[in-house]
């Protein structure tokens, strides 16, 4: 029987999955902004960038709320997880915050002044603000499954550089490249003309590196984490179906079936996050010092009363949120064309 602690663990996994699938492609668009907008005329470069931003314009902020809600849900359901993670990964989170701050502002500010220097500045902010969080979140999740030094008082006792181990860095780079691919496919799905061609080309180029990185990460994961020793939960089929999805994505990219390709990269991301949470369960932060110091869904959780209240609220409102967010994607389902009016 599913207890409330497990329900909240699953719910947070769902929130992160939603976040990475959705914000994954808008991070990707931001990462690709300087690259696939290349053209002869400076005006054409600007137009392409504007178009790229417009593909995610109505959505990026709503996508980011998935992360905020995941943070809030962690605080509400597992206060010790929230406290240990956020104070422990202090400087990494600070960098993440700075990146998200300049990125969010840049989307709104960049087109409000025609000065090329102004635009370059904010376009740079969009690139860094998209690439850095992708990298940092990959590193953070890599460390989460690998385990970090946590003492008996539930405090993280490693430093900032402790987080930069080869495994976590590989996870970071993998996240970066995977999101870039996911974003390239999204652009090719949402635009027409030159930009679509450029995005398709980028997707073709990014596919093989993504496959290699994901394969490398998965292999490394079998050595670096206790994935094989876990009892109760079998992580085998989930990461393997993630790998199958990325292979299929390559097929669909070549066949110009953008919708299917996008679905496949979304699945890959989903399966990767699912793998992360399956390795963790029932722990939420693995201590590398002593297994008994690990935070679990039981010793890090809120009281049964709070979990009950929050469950009622979440189960009532999450479907509503899903419904109207899906509706907003429906409203903007059409491809952007050269003649589309590009708002602001």
């Amino acid at each position, binding site marked *: 029987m599913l207890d409330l602690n497990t329900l909240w663990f699953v719910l947070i996994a769902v929130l992160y999955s939603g976040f990475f699938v959705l914000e994954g492609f808008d991070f990707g668009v931001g990462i690709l902004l300087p690259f696939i907008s290349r053209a002869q005329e400076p005006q054409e470069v600007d137009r392409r960038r504007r178009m790229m931003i417009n593909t995610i314009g109505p959505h990026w902020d709503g996508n980011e709320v998935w992360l905020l809600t995941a943070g809030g849900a962690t*605080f509400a359901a597992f206060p010790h997880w929230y406290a240990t993670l956020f104070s422990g990964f202090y400087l990494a989170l*600070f960098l993440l915050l700075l990146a998200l701050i300049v990125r969010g502002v840049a989307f709104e500010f960049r087109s409000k002044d025609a000065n090329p220097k102004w635009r370059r500045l904010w376009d740079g902010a969009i690139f860094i603000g998209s690439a850095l969080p992708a990298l940092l979140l990959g590193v953070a999740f890599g460390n989460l499954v690998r385990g970090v030094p946590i003492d008996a008082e539930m405090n993280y006792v490693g430093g900032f550089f402790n987080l930069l181990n080869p495994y976590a860095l590989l996870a970071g780079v993998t996240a970066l490249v995977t999101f870039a691919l996911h974003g390239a496919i999204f652009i090719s799905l949402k635009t027409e003309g030159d930009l679509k061609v450029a995005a398709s080309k980028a997707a073709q180029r990014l596919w093989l590196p993504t496959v290699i990185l994901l394969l490398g990460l998965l292999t490394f994961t079998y050595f670096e984490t206790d994935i094989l020793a876990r009892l109760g939960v079998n992580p085998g089929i989930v990461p393997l179906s993630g790998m199958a999805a990325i292979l299929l994505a390559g097929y669909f990219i070549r066949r110009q079936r953008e919708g299917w390709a996008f679905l496949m990269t979304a699945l890959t991301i989903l399966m990767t996050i699912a793998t992360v949470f399956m390795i963790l369960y029932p722990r939420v932060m693995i201590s590398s010092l002593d297994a008994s110091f690990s935070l679990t869904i039981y010793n890090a959780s809120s009281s049964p*009363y709070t979990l009950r209240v929050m469950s009622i609220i979440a189960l009532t409102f999450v479907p509503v949120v899903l419904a109207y*967010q899906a509706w907003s994607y429906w409203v903007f389902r059409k491809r952007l064309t050269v003649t589309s009016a590009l708002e602001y």
Partner: protein
Amino acid sequence: MDVILLSRLQFAITTVYHFFFVPLTLGLSVLVALMESIYVSTGQEVYKRMAKFWGKLFVINFAMGVVTGIVQEFQFGMNWSEYSRFVGDIFGAPLAIEALLAFFLESTFLGVWIFGWEKLSKRAHATAIWLVAIGSNVSALWILIANSFMQQPVGYALSGGRAEMTDFFALVLNPNVWVQFPHVVMGGFVTAAFFVMGISAYHLVRKNEVDFFKRSFQMAAIMGAIGIIMVGLIGHSQAQHIVEVQPMKMAAAEALWNTEDPASFSLLTIGDLTQRREVFSIRLPRLLSLLAYNQLAGEVKGIYDLQNMYAAEYGPGDYIPPVAVIYWSFRIMVGAGVVLGLLALYALFMVMGDMLMVRPRALRLYSWALALPYLANTAGWMMTEMGRVPWVVYGLMKIEDAVSTTLSPAQVLITLLGFTLIYGALMVADVYLLMKFARKVPSEEMTASTDDEESLPSLIST
């Protein structure tokens, strides 16, 4: 400097900064929604143009509020992890609910609103901005439910070394919420009203688009007058509530060192901060009793007595908050409020007598008054938060026990400097853009972007 002091400074800077943007969002979303609704129901184009013009300023401001809000959500865990562990069972809930109920709503529908002018029916498009307005104000409700627990803890029991929620509805119905929330929301309405009046006045003085800005000024004047009256009335009950649940805060706000009955109201007090005593004071007899209890007598406890009471209850320690800061914040807030009240009523008077165009000198005043709500909002929060010192949760947890134990001063110094620098730079960009678009004459703006929206050149120029 130690981790506590640096963390407090960082929290103060990031929170005050965040709250530069929030009040305008609360009020302006409603005003823009009203404009668009008038457009939808009357079909008058000018209201659509108003919604677009003020909507653009709204979006610039909103973006800043959103991104600085992310920091708020994270820094309880980053800098105040012991606090998070102690109250997470209670405090995390409203934060998560805020994200789920409000953040999704406002961000999703703002995206729909900005990009959906041509894609939705008029009615659906107006509904989108109403949902943004509702989302923003619902967000204020939940974060103030969280803050109210820190001011007046309710619905909890201490268990296993932490505070645990025992009654969710007590938390939501915390009496503090229902004075604080309307005060903040109405403060937001006033901020938006003076923002719109200030910019409209700028254009009216220059005779730009007179009809457009007269209507804007009118709507704002009505909102401002209603808002400021509510702010005053609610503020009064809020002060009475504070006398009851946080007597030290009110004593400090009044620099009332000794218990008085009937209590006098300080017009001006100069104190000796190191000795913690009064040097010079002009006081109006009985007025504080009147304010506190709506009658001419009644004991209001002084700082010395409260200190002794707290020491007896919670053990030896210093329970006196920074009196001068609270005293002056309170006076700046109330003083600004009084001036805003007079200006709002005068604005209404000018609007009703159709005198806007014949009083350019008075109008100019409103461009300057734009800054006053910001002053009042900031001062109000300074008093609210500093007045709780030394407590982070009133009577339950002290600030020194709340800070993360794993941080080094160097780490916090890095982030403090980082946030301050980036916030400073963004403020420059934000003010630049706001000024640029506020000064733009809307008719020129509109012809540029609507007439040739389909052609390529406008894609580049707008």
